[in-house]
């Protein structure tokens, strides 16, 4: 606070150098801060503290609307309350019926996947959070929630309401969390068209009623009314949560890309409460971990493997017979045996492997476990099992 302590008659910028010098100092400080925050993410702690300090003010700013809501609620008439009660009861009955059907469907689905039990739901834990502050301009669409690290909230957590996806947390303070909405121009969510399975990306358009799908070719199979659900890619949102409904598809013969708009299902602008969700790791529908870690490191099991041995029909005159079958199957073939034996939970992958045995995915999890033990005997049976 050097600048506040002032002496009368002091020349401008007398203490702490001239104004130009101090400006250079502050500008340098700002640039260093921007660099640290943007490139190196060193300032998470600083942001954490600043956000904690700013929270009371945000609460205070939000208090007049909150007080108005409270007043409106407490002045409701008895008739209105009983009508609402009736409506809620009907709603609960309806949801109960639907949930019953959902249980049955989930069980059936689990059996179809070849699992013994019904899958546990992918959402592990829910926490309702109240919206403390809202920014809904065309440039920034953010919410501030009254839950933070103290409640176990983490950065990049999915936020939903009862209709669909709302957004994800960006900055988490001790008692508050900032949420970037899916309609923010800086936000993009990987989605899938439910009808066709077509994957694409939905980008916020800057108003609460629309998302843009800018990466669809002109001949993509998409039409007004299609439901967009999360695709489970990207590592934040799990698969299958409703996001938006396509409202407008504009195809122009000279444009290579279709112009598609969708309306988010969540009531982004009228909600006063949202849900923070924790997902069960390891569940099939849980968000896939971000790809960067594995692909950069180079998973050795995912690399192309040497071609499978030639069939036994071609004789090898020079080499002695016993070592050859032992070494070669151990390198390439156990992939197939163990995939068939262990991998009942993922029938799709077992199907794929005979077609492309050299670069098959199951090699990743199975080669380490089964390769040495499988031996020549197991390898010999494989072609009969898997190639009809």
């Amino acid at each position, binding site marked *: 606070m050097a*600048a506040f302590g*002032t002496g009368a008659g002091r020349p401008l910028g007398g203490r702490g150098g001239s*104004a130009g010098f101090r400006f250079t100092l502050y500008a340098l400080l700002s640039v260093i801060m921007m660099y*640290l925050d943007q490139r190196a993410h060193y300032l998470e702690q600083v942001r954490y503290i600043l956000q904690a300090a700013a929270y009371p*003010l945000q609460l205070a700013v939000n208090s007049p609307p909150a007080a108005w809501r409270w007043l409106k609620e407490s002045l409701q008439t008895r008739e209105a309350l009983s009508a609402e009660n009736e409506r809620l009861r009907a709603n609960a009955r309806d949801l109960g019926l639907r949930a019953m059907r959902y249980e049955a469907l989930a069980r059936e689905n689990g059996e179809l996947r070849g699992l013994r039990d019904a899958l546990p739901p992918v959402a592990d834990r829910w926490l309702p959070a109240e919206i403390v502050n809202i*920014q809904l*301009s065309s*440039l920034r669409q953010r919410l501030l929630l009254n839950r933070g690290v103290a409640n176990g909230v983490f950065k990049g957590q999915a936020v939903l309401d009862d209709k669909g996806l709302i957004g994800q947390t960006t900055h988490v303070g001790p008692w508050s969390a900032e949420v970037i909405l899916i309609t923010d121009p*800086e936000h993009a969510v990987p989605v899938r068209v439910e009808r066709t399975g077509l994957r694409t990306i939905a980008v916020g358009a800057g108003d609460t009623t629309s998302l843009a799908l800018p990466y669809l070719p002109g001949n993509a199979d998409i039409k007004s009314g299609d439901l967009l659900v999360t695709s489970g890619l990207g590592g934040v949102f799990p698969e299958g949560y409703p996001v938006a409904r396509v409202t407008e598809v504009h195809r122009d013969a000279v444009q290579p890309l279709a112009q598609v708009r969708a309306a988010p299902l969540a009531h982004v602008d009228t909600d006063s409460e949202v849900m923070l969700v924790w997902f069960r790791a390891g569940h099939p529908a849980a968000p896939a971990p971000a790809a960067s870690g594995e692909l950069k490191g180079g998973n050795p099991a995912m690399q192309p493997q040497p071609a499978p041995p030639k069939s036994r029909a071609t004789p090898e005159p020079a080499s002695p017979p016993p070592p050859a079958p032992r070494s070669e199957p151990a390198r390439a073939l156990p992939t197939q045996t163990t995939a068939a034996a262990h991998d009942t939970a993922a029938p799709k992958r077992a199907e794929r492997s005979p077609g492309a045995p050299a670069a098959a995915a199951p090699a990743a999890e199975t080669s380490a476990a089964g390769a040495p033990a499988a031996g020549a005997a197991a390898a010999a049976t494989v072609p009969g099992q898997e190639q009809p």
Partner: protein
Amino acid sequence: MNVDSRARLMLSVLVALILTVLPLPPWLDVVRPAFLVLTVIYWSVNAPRAGGLAIGFFAGLLLDVFQGPVLGEHALALSLITYIAVREHQRIRSKPAIQQALIVFAALILYEVVLFMIDGWTGNPVTSPLRWVHTVTGALLWPPVAAILSYGAGHRV
């Protein structure tokens, strides 16, 4: 400069900050002037020794916490505006209100240009023309804001 005017400075900054983060409907949000920037310009011009650069920097930092994509963005822009205002305070102060409003308009444009460039460099480009609207409303609101801030001062600090 005394305790009283320092308290007025802090109070006005707080009120401006509240006006800046107050939730408003979207159409009103677009035309909302940057109250905090106006306040900082006022104090830089009329009491350059009281506020000075520190007030600009810390007010910018507050804005960053509330609405900046990166820490330091608003701090840099507001430091620049404050520096110019402090340097030229005597010339700006002697101008009539209309000309002051024009100068404030130029300052707000400069402020927004700095933000615009930093947004681009940090990978959060916001190219909507709506982001420039507040410079006009800010300049239009300058005379009443200056009148309110100088109310009760009786004299120029």
